[in-house]
């Protein structure tokens, strides 16, 4: 697989040029946002960081402070679909360069990716140590009132491997797999057990 190197913040051209199936190595600034931050932003709350062009990451890391410095010990993606009620509004209001998580997202997000020229990056769920190794530093942590996993972590990453699974043309690998697996399931069920 050919791998594209990209750096966050992403320019509008880079975001728009990402295609479903592209393997990428992501470097640069990534901002975590889970359920609480999404709900807050969708309700019109101010973002402590200008998200324009940045990668918004669905993640609640395990982190500890060592001598006053935050160290991320585990930081895999969480299920993105929980942010579906909020994501389209967050994309339209804040214009991030990409959304990153696992499991893919629904039609509202797909429409917002298309109209705003954004993409969805997929990470391997559970590969928390592997991903944490690509986090070179914690720049800042905001909105800590939501609790440590739900806070907004601003991270610097280097060569984080991801796969584009939804893009600005409206393609979705998740939709494709769901449709094909549904067809197989209907066939399989024609033969009863035993």
């Amino acid at each position, binding site marked *: *697989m050919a791998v594209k190197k990209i750096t966050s913040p992403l320019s509008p051209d880079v975001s728009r040029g990402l295609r479903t199936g592209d393997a990428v190595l992501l470097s640069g600034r990534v901002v975590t946002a889970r359920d*609480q931050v999404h709900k807050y932003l969708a309700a019109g709350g101010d973002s402590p960081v200008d998200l324009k062009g940045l990668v918004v990451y669905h*993640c*609640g*890391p*395990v*982190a*500890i402070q060592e001598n006053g410095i935050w*160290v991320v*010990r*585990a*930081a*895999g993606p*969480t*299920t993105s*679909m929980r942010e579906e009620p909020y994501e389209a509004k967050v994309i339209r209001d804040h214009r991030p360069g990409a959304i990153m998580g*696992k*499991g*893919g997202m629904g039609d509202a997000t797909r429409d917002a990716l298309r109209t705003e020229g954004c993409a969805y990056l*997929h990470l*391997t*769920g*559970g*590969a*928390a*140590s*592997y*991903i*944490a*190794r690509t986090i070179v530093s914690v720049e800042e942590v905001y909105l800590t009132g*939501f*609790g*440590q*996993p*739900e806070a907004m972590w601003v991270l610097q990453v280097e060569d984080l*491997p991801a*796969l584009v*699974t939804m893009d600005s043309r409206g393609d979705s*690998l*998740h939709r494709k*797999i*769901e449709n*094909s*697996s*549904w067809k*197989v*399931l209907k066939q*399989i*069920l024609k033969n*009863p*057990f*035993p």
Partner: protein
Amino acid sequence: MVTLIEKTDSDLPDDVCDALARACEREPEGTVARETLRIILESAALSRNSVLPICQDTGSILAIVRAEPTKRVFDIERALREGLRHLTKKGMLRQNCVDPLTGENTGDNLGEHVPQIHFIPTPAPATVSLMLKGGGSENMSAQYSLPDSGLDAGRDLDGVRRCILDALFRAQGKGCAPGIVGVCIGGDRASGYLLAKEMLFRRLDEPNPVHDLELLEERVVEEANGLGIGPMGLGGRSTLLGARIGLAGRHPACFFVTVAYSCWATRRMTAELDEEGRIARWL
């Protein structure tokens, strides 16, 4: 108890690792599925060798204590709670307990009915079985009441099969496939979920003592892997590492099928304790 929790959190059981390695071999070179499984195996090895959490979602904690009904049971409970508090502070466990009313995180993995500790009076020696199960996979678990006309599922093993395949189809990659399903046929609404989860303690390489259930397990695994959902739902041949199916007596009016979906990072350990409450051996 700190050792038991830490090991469960960082050391993926060997039977699960073996199943993942076999799944990786099955996927053709150069595919997303193979690369995903390679990353999974590398991450699990890194967590074991560096004693780091396998997943940043260190789960909700289920402990099943089998011991003689003496005062020692309170010591085991206290040690579990202290161990959780200590390891949360140390960055081995994420702060995973939230007050549902206020939305506040308790910060130490302790709260109302948390952790879940079940005590089963049993002759010595005492054992503690621990499971750390992530929220993403927990959200994919499901309970069915048969007959279910939507699934064309009757009160028989074919009906059970239809329920399991439905749960796997709905989960797609959202529960972190390739997963493992623990299934309880029968029981009531509450016992069904608990027993389905307990099935996940059974090793993947041990045969089911009930022959018909073993055949059903094999069939479901084969069919699930044929769905093409694949690792993380990105396509491929590995959707399910194993199915572990058990039974519970049912009320004549009820026929529940409960499917506990567990991610590839199925974290479970059982330790036997000595008289002083120290770990005597791993089971």
